[in-house]
């Protein structure tokens, strides 16, 4: 059991050091930094421009859709990378593998396209039916 105690002690030391590094840094900063409170310091930083309005506004849902589509294709590129590295070994079979994989994703992409999720200018919600086929 002595070895386990030793191990746990090491773990404890590691955790304590981790906490100490953060707290120590904050404490040190608090002690040595000059204090000059100004109202600009509390304002939101917007690329150096003066901020207009509050940051707590409701963002347009379209940003989320775009972000989601971006993430899907981002992850897909990530999965293409290891494939590309060993592509030569796989040969034609590897190409078919990837075309299949890519084909499934393209179906999802076409679905988004077909139903207008990629259009930046869309009908105002609540006034017009969401899709053109809603009318039939």
């Amino acid at each position, binding site marked *: 059991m002595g*070895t*386990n105690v030793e*191990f746990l002690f090491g773990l404890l030391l590691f955790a304590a050091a981790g906490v100490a590094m953060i707290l120590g840094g904050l404490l040190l900063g608090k002690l040595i930094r000059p204090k000059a409170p100004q109202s600009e310091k509390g304002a939101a930083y917007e690329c150096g421009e003066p901020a207009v309005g509050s940051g707590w506004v409701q963002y347009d849902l379209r940003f989320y859709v775009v972000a989601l589509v971006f993430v899907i294709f981002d992850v897909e590129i990530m999965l293409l990378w290891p494939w590309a590295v060993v592509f030569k070994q796989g040969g034609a079979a590897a190409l078919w*593998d990837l075309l299949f994989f890519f084909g499934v994703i393209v179906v999802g992409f076409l679905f988004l396209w077909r139903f207008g999720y990629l259009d930046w200018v869309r009908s105002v919600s609540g006034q017009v039916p*969401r*899709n053109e086929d809603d009318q039939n």
Partner: protein
Amino acid sequence: MWCASIGYWLPSGNDLMRVGPDLALIAAIVLILLTTMVTGRRALATAVIVMLGLTAGFLLNWNAGVWVSHHGPDTILEPVPASMIIVDGFTVYFRFLLLIFLAGVTSFWLLGANRQEKDSPEFFTLLLGSAVGMSLMVSTLNLLMIVVAMELASLPSYALAAFDRNSRKGAEAAVKYVIFGSITAATMVYGVSLLYGLFGTLNLAEIAQQMPFVLAEHGRTPLFYLAILAFAVGVGFKISAVPFHFWCPDVFEGARVEVTMWLSVASKAAGLCLLLRVMQTLAAGPTGAVGEYVGPIAGAIGLFAALTCFVGNLSAYRQTSVKRLLAYSSIAHAGYMLMLGAILLRPELSEGAWTAIIAYLLIYMFMNLGAFGVTALVEHYSGSDHIEQFNGLGRRAPWLAVAMAVCLFSLVGLPPLGGFLAKWWLLWALADGGGWLWALVIWACLNTAFSLFYYARIIKHMFLTEDTREKMRVPMSGVAIVQLCAVVLILTGTILAAPIRTAATRYAQGLLQSRTAETLTLTDHAPDETHESMLHH
């Protein structure tokens, strides 16, 4: 290292047939999206494609089952990362369960007000996507694949919980679900990374073989337990085992009832089967190591199982929302099933344990399908799932009330219903172990007695509470499905008991044979230099 043959890049048609059911579900998803693009959003067309996909999956699974029973289990992608996908009798069984249940959920979806639903393609894409994930969860022993499969099962579930965009409760449920799910998933990935760091392999079968050699080094045993604990957090979330059950009632109440039905059985069954498979694999390691390293894990699982069914039963007692009540009931049932995890490391007991779990899951599926089905119909035709809405159901919709009563009595575990036999076999398997397992048996019996009160409360509302509202007009097809569940429960409790037991035993034996076969091939290269962990240096 890399076996760069064509076989790896292009699996043979034979191999693909083994994963055919999963591919059929994926094909159904693609087909739904393509059809929707051509014809527009049509709910009925979507449902037809789903049913076609399920039928194809069923036939392919049948084919896979026949193949497995002739040739033994199949490990696909064998040469490179062994055990990436395992197709054995248990996989085949679980897929059957999943496909039948999907068909039931789809039928209830059609019966509700969903025929005019515009978002049906999205709904079924998510539903089938999570089904593929659950199917993969149960058919792998590779840690990476487990993580990916669990995410594939979880992510669509989060979206399904919030599928009614105008429902505040649904939104609340989904936020709780996603936060809880991502934290537990992160913990699980951490545990997996620790296991990989310790053993230098992602294959659980190899990990089991190397346990005594790797863990002999000082200080590694606590790390191993830490890794297993972190891993169990992710699985516990799926099962809704007790410290990780908080999402369950909120999600079950907030989500629409088809989704609740789906999550209450499929998600839990997948998590449970994954856990049992992992336990079984770890228990197949060298004998001495199993007692020393896996024994404490089994004890911990038993403890958590006892806690889970206690908390589930206790919290169900005061619920007035029937969906919420059934959510707590499903937590309690997860606890009963989890108890079997405690006996899997004893080879002489594991056959009984697997037989019990296979039979229990089958019967549990019908109990929940029936109980949630009646709740779905009542909620749809009276606007709420509050227990008051069940008042006088015995007069207003006698066929529904009778089916509900059968399902509830079966959930309690009263003879002569399927639920009784399922619980009996489970407790019998536990009692076979003797010793401290008797405590679990007694605990489960006490809990069962206690659970009678809250199940009976619904029955009291249905038959003994007066209600002057007019009769409930429910479609015949809906009544037929819940009645079918009730009939299945009565049959499984009586004349079908012996055939189910025989079939379950056969599946269990197939599973055990496959494990021993794998153990034999792996012992040849157990203490390998290349597998020395990075912690060593």
